């Protein structure tokens, strides 16, 4: 239970954190909630020479209402988002997904940004960024850039955030009004890493036909994946069991699951399809209910 020694700096704000990052050299890391980083440092799997602590900056928790979306400061703890009334009303899928992240004590410290930058493909939040067409605001001493969710995740535990960059905020786009959501995952126990999971947002027109769909899966590839082929199957169609099965089947083309000590790739493929059907069922049902 003992991390190796390191130098420690407290950042006043994220800009300051960028400056410290720049001047500290290669082996420095941002400490946001630390729920992943400290855990790894306890095992000495991570041994940064410098830690830059942003966990107590002023207004670290911030969820801003924007036109057509919300902007969440990267240093916002997950529980803050989960408990936000605005998020509960406008982004119920996001709340529901966050509740599946570890346990509430972890979520009291773990940040939205930290989870996303960690980029565990079995984690719920990266998939949510795909489901909500998220945009990632990244800063450094050199300036700022925006990256869309579809480009943000590179592979296991790897994003486009460079060593001298800091994720500043994430904008989640609000789905259209006539939308419903669904979310299902299989884990060995609640709060464990998902063995596989699927989420869906479905928008229906007055005739009950699907005009827009987002299907995002996790635990099934090296990154979270958006199943655009499966989404296309739904466009223009009304609900039917066969429609959902056909949509879920076409999820297979983007899956690249691994076998590991817990489950096989075959299992992940099969369950991904099953969970997609269930998520779509819930999404259609909820979308109908708001019509």
């Amino acid at each position, binding site marked *: *239970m*003992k*991390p*190796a*020694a*390191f*130098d*420690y700096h*407290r950042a006043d704000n994220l800009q300051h954190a960028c400056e410290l990052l720049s001047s500290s050299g290669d082996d420095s890391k941002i*400490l946001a909630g*630390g*729920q992943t980083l*400290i*855990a790894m*440092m*306890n*095992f000495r799997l991570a041994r940064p020479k410098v*830690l830059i*602590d942003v*966990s*107590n900056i002023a207004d670290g928790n911030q969820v801003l209402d924007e036109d057509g979306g919300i902007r969440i400061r990267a240093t916002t703890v997950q*529980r*803050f988002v989960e*408990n936000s009334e605005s998020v509960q009303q406008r982004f119920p899928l996001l709340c529901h997904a966050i509740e599946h992240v*570890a*346990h*509430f*004590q*972890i979520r*009291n*410290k773990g940040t939205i940004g930290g989870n996303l930058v960690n980029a565990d493909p079995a984690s719920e939040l990266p998939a949510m960024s795909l489901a909500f067409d998220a945009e990632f605001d990244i800063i450094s001493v050199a300036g700022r850039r925006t990256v869309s969710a579809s480009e943000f995740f590179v592979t296991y535990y790897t994003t486009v955030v460079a060593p001298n960059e800091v994720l500043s905020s994430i904008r989640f786009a609000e789905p259209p009004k006539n939308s419903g959501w669904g979310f299902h995952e299989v884990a060995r*126990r*609640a*709060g464990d890493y998902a063995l596989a999971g699927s989420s869906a947002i479905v928008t229906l027109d007055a005739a009950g036909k699907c005009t827009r769909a987002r299907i995002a899966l996790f635990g099934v590839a090296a990154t979270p994946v958006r199943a655009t082929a499966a989404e296309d199957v739904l466009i223009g169609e009304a609900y039917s069991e066969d429609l959902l099965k056909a949509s879920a089947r076409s999820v297979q083309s983007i899956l690249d699951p691994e076998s590991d000590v817990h489950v096989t790739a075959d299992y992940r493929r099969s369950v991904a399809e099953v969970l997609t059907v269930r998520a779509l069922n819930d999404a259609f049902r909820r979308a109908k209910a708001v019509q």
Partner: protein
Amino acid sequence: MSITVSLQVNGRNVSETLEPQTLLVDFLRNHLRLTGTHVGCDTSQCGACVVHVDGLAVKSCTLLAAQAHGTQVTTIEGLETEGRLHPVQEAFRSEHGLQCGFCTPGMIMSAVALLRRNPTPTEAQVREGLEGNICRCTGYHNIVKAILTASTHMPAQSAQASRS
């Protein structure tokens, strides 16, 4: 490197110079001799180390003492008020919610936080809320009973339930 960490622990001001890699749980147990908070694992799973930082339940094994700088920390030792046990503590005894007692401080601190957030939980909500705490002795049956019992004995909360 040495840093200075100043905070309040159980209402008392504390300030110490320590190495930055000192975990909050080690700070509490070894520097402050508050040994009621326990270490049961090394992967943030078991919850024996749960304390409150600024009213939020956190796992002190996955927090640097430095991250608690400027905060108010409450440990199991600080739960009593003027020698009176917290209703959750009373309920753990009345419902036999502990056997060896090792997971109990973390379990109680998590339960207090849960009830602050949701003063009238269902049994399912209590069980879900205990996801971050492992007990090897009780099978959880009496822990759940204790928390539900405590919820009927706690003073009414304001509508704006405090963060937990």
